[in-house]
């Protein structure tokens, strides 16, 4: 069993904050596909189209039949640990700071033999389950886990290096006025977050759920309006050094395409929240989080964006909102570059129509705020960066991966003339 994680002590104000260091970054161009799958929490390897041989490390041609047709496919995650060792020294700064470190060789059921990080509870020669995740460099790596859940399994140091577990961490939820924000706060509390800062815009307007929100353990509501630069900067000045996890629940949604709209006022409001709001948060909280990526057990670890799946491809029924979400998605990709080297993960959850008032006329299946909150916690505890939630979103993402131009045709043709 892993040593149970202890609530981190208060920071020694005389000690310099440890700068983030990184595990090896370099990968071949072919290997990026492994990282992309790992970012989704998938374990994918190259499979030969001709002979079905599974190959690793990534290659240009099949080592068995010389075919060039190697496709990245999800493969069986089972295997057996055939050799393990514990590193006690390394020339790499990242590992030097984290010694001892367990690595080993795993014979995959899928075929290849791979070098992997090994969870502390895996016994020698035991069966293992491989997970692929992004590490602090943002690159895909493999970690061998025990097949059966062990005591305090999530507290293993090597697993925690790949995840963003909220346990004993401090989180900021940017908008607590909505059901989504309030469910998110409750889910964080249930997941063991030690403090949850909750942004409340326009306290001069009442909102429902306020009493229940304030009763959640560890909750502190703070004035925050992502459309107001002063407000965002003031909150960052006040508690930005404690934002280990930032979850942006602020969103502005209105139905209508550009031609349905009369003027740009609503579209500006959409951009103010969905795009400029994100940008204000990045400018105010980003630098502090970037500097705290290796700040002990409650280091800054995750920035969570909740985005409509129509950020990928415009759905004219919510046409201008889709455009603002696309802008936010693009900015979130830039944020990954800003956070590169810091160890802070950018988690993007692309969700289908949410069960809330501005999407009320849409037919099921819809995503409930509770489901979205639970999904964020799952992504954090698993360290997954790209999440697709709900049948509609899964369908859109699948078609987007197949051919974004076909998806665009479909979304713009099948809803022609449909207004909410």
């Amino acid at each position, binding site marked *: 069993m892993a040593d149970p994680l202890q609530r981190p002590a208060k920071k020694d104000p005389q000690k310099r904050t440890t700068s983030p260091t990184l595990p090896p970054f370099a990968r071949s161009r072919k290997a990026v596909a492994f990282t992309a799958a790992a970012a989704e929490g998938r374990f994918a390897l190259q499979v030969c189209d001709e002979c079905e041989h599974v190959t690793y490390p990534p290659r240009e041609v099949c080592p068995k039949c010389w075919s060039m047709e190697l496709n990245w496919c999800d493969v069986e995650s089972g295997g057996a640990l055939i050799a393990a060792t514990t590193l006690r020294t390394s020339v790499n700064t990242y590992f030097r700071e984290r010694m001892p470190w367990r690595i080993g060789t795993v014979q995959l059921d899928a075929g290849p033999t791979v070098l992997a990080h090994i969870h502390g509870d895996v016994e020698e020669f035991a069966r293992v389950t491989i997970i692929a995740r992004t590490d602090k460099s943002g690159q895909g790596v493999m970690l061998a886990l025990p097949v059966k859940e062990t005591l305090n399994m999530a507290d293993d140091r090597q697993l925690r290096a790949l995840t963003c577990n909220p346990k004993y961490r401090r989180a900021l939820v940017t908008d607590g006025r909505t059901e989504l924000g309030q469910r998110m706060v409750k889910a964080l509390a249930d997941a063991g977050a030690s403090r949850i800062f909750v942004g409340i815009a*326009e*306290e*001069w*307007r*009442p909102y429902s759920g306020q009493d229940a929100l304030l009763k959640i353990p560890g909750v502190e509501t703070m004035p925050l*309006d992502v459309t*107001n630069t*002063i*407000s965002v900067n003031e909150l960052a000045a006040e508690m930005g050094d404690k934002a280990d996890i930032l979850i942006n629940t602020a969103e502005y949604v209105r139905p209508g395409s550009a031609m349905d709209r009369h003027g740009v006022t609503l579209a500006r409001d959409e951009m103010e929240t969905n795009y400029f709001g994100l940008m204000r948060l990045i400018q105010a909280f980003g630098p502090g989080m970037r500097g705290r990526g290796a700040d002990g057990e409650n280091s800054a670890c995750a920035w969570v964006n909740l985005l409509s799946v129509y950020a990928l491809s415009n759905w004219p029924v919510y046409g201008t909102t889709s455009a603002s979400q696309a802008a936010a998605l693009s900015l979130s990709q830039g944020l990954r570059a800003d956070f590169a080297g810091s160890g802070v993960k950018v988690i993007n959850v692309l969700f289908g129509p949410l069960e809330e008032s501005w999407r009320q006329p849409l037919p099921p299946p819809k995503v409930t705020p509770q489901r979205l909150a639970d999904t964020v916690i799952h992504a954090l505890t698993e360290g997954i960066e790209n999440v697709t939630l709900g049948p509609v979103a899964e369908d859109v993402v699948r078609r987007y991966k197949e051919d974004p131009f076909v998806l665009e045709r479909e979304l713009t043709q099948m809803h022609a003339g449909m207004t909410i």
Partner: protein
Amino acid sequence: MSMQDASALQVLDGALSAGEIETVDLTHTLDPDFPVIVLPPEFGQCARFRVEEVSRYDERGPAWYWRNFSCSEHTGTHFDAPIHWISGKDLPDAAVDSIPPTAFVRPVCVIDCSAESAKDEDFLLTEEFIQAWEKTHGDIPAGSWVLMRTDWSKRSGAEYLNMREDGAHTPGPTGDAIKYMVEERDIIGFGTETVGTDAGQATHLSPPHPAHYLLHGAGRYGLQCLANLDSLPATGAILVCPPLKIKNGSGSPLRVLALVDRSAA
């Protein structure tokens, strides 16, 4: 120089310098956190006051600090022009840039409804209430501004809009009161301390939003989100309230001042 020789402006200047005439600021600070009117969500909304730095003695402008600000024509302490309402849309000289500037410097009457508003958040100022006020203070002079003092400006946070599930609960005038002031007293405008010239529940009055409908239909002006009305006398002060000269503007945030004669005190 004797008083007889001095021009009216020289007298005014002397009284201002001597502190015999006090300049009272009736304006709330333009602040992102100051409430604005909230309409049902499917309507367009009043923009909040916002600022973005252009530079602050930094790489964007090393020796100077300046900002862009944005807001609605109806954010903060603001002026309503007749074209703000459909009833005034076809009137001549009815936008902030075309209103004759004489309207911006006028005598002002203050009707104290603070005790009544403290007891009843939905207090309505009626024709009878105004007539009772006139028995004490004399008839409202033609061409005056009339301000309804409720001490609402002393409220802050959620207490100011006082929103509940059935809407806002704040005091305001009845249609009859507005008609009386416009038709019988020929006022130039009407102002309040609340977020609008109408009561919070005015959508349920007849006509709905009588201050907006009747005042602006008659080419009169509105002022709202005023402060410090408790430091004004019932009569005798001069109101100074020029809105920004926005082309075809429906209104404008503005600085509202009152000149109050303290020499008698």
